[in-house]
């Protein structure tokens, strides 16, 4: 439903977005990741038709965003960065205005009520937007974006500035709408990608670095398939020695430690699986294990590596 071909945007000499191409289909929640200033927002602004690309083309539901702008804008809902709103209007007035401009069909008042209930705005409907808290403003912005039940939803940092409960609600809302839509959202919050997205794109310095599922992304971590075990401090030397002796173990690292316990992380050799062997050894040698689990991979570490702020993975 969204097709992006060789999209670039230059501001003077600065290249904000550099030859990005991808395609998103129905039912996908695409998470845009990247450091600040990587070009996430610029890309979203070009998808929604606010900015014109320097080169390249964006097609949304078959409409070229440049050539057929109005039709493309009609099928999209957009929450711009920072959720800008008209401060002197009330949420009721504002949503009414948007519904009228968007040409929402049927009973507009009922549709507004429905969306207001979805984002929990009932209590502030008639208060000027300028007096609302950041969380409420964000929700008004979200209500505005979903009001016309768009096929494509573009959300620039939808949970920024929300408290953990509100974040949870917004994620649940996005998930509930995702089935028959395309949702593109940007975030800095890696847990959000795991919780919400079916696909991740990482952008760094304007270039597309990675395009895969969150699980595949986690698998790029050097922690992927590593075994972490927490043991009493007294046993440390014994366990360390026998782990080092195992053929499958490539290296050993120490994790968190306190007065009584230490955590060891054993990294497997490429392609090897450690957990069964370590479990067997523990049983044979009667280790006292407080905790043992297989690491799925750490997104923050992958993120830092891929965007050029971390060391390259060892394996």
């Amino acid at each position, binding site marked *: 439903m969204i097709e992006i071909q060789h999209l670039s945007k230059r501001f003077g000499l600065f290249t904000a977005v550099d030859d990005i191409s991808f395609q998103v289909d129905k039912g996908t929640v695409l998470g845009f990741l990247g450091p600040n200033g990587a070009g996430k927002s610029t890309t979203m602004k070009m998808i929604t038709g*606010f900015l014109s690309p320097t080169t390249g083309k964006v097609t949304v539901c078959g409409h070229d965003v440049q050539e057929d702008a109005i039709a493309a804008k009609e099928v999209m809902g957009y929450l711009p*960065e920072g959720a*800008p709103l*008209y401060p002197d*209007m009330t949420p009721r007035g504002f949503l009414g*205005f948007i519904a009228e401009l968007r040409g929402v069909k049927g009973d507009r008042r009922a549709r507004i009520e429905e969306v207001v209930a979805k984002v929990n705005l009932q209590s502030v409907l008639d208060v000027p937007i300028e007096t609302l808290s950041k969380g409420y403003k964000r929700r008004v912005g979200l209500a505005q974006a979903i009001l016309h039940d768009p096929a494509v939803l573009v959300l620039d940092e939808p949970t920024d500035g929300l408290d953990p409960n509100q974040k949870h609600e917004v994620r649940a809302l996005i998930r509930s709408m995702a089935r028959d839509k395309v949702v593109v959202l940007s975030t800095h919050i890696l847990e959000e990608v795991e919780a919400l997205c079916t696909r991740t794109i990482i952008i760094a310095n304007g270039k597309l670095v990675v395009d895969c599922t969150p699980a595949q992304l986690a698998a790029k971590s050097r922690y992927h398939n590593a075994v972490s075990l927490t043991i009493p401090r007294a046993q440390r030397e014994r366990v360390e020695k026998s782990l080092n002796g195992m053929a499958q173990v490539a290296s050993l690292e120490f994790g968190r430690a306190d007065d009584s316990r230490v955590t060891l992380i054993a990294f497997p050799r490429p392609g090897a699986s450690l957990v069964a062997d370590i479990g067997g050894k523990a049983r044979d040698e009667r280790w006292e294990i407080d905790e043992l689990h297989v690491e799925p991979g750490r997104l923050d570490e992958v993120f830092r590596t891929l965007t050029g702020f971390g060391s390259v993975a060892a394996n």
Partner: protein
Amino acid sequence: MSKTITLMKRELAGYFATPVAYVFMVIFLLLCGILTFYLGDFYENGQADLQAFFTWHPWLYLFLIPAISMRLWAEERKSGTIELLMTLPVSLAQAVSAKFLAAWIFAGLALALTFPFWITVNLLGDPDNGVILASYIGSFLMAGGFLAIGACISASTKNQVIAFVISVTLSFLFILAGFPAVLNFFKPWVGQAVVDAISSLSFLTHFSAITKGVIDLRDLVFFGSLIGCFLFANATLIELKKAD
């Protein structure tokens, strides 16, 4: 068209949601009164016309119209709502004309509220109401001209103070263009055609022609094309500098 009206209604409601509208109207009417009755010697003239009232309009508009127009686009830029507006399914032409029309209607409303002057002069004497009507139309057109200039300047910045100052300056040039002192300054070193061209750009020349009671097509075309040109420039500026 219906989208333009929706946008226009929101804009217009925006004036009355804040004290801006009331402050503007009260000050406008107050200044009209002071200028007409004290400086304009309305009574002492002993004439049944509103010349003393309309003479001041270009000067009142010079400061008051940029006060309306300065926020038109600068505020949208500053608060980021321009991104919201430009990603709604409305064309740039609709957005530009809706904002301009709302401001023009608002200015027209302020102008219409000066009707007590018209009543006063009709109670005191027997004026030529045709001339007064023409003058009102001329004043309204001139307000539109000032507004279009201001809207265009407002589109180029996110700072309302800058928008105000530049709009006043540019508007002042459009008033000055008809003054003999200015025209004499140009006369020695440019041809008569250029002097005529400069003079024909003057708001004063066209406005005073209308206030004599003759609505000449040339004056209508002048204000109409001036508004059209500046709104076109306004749209172009927004298109080119959307992200700044």
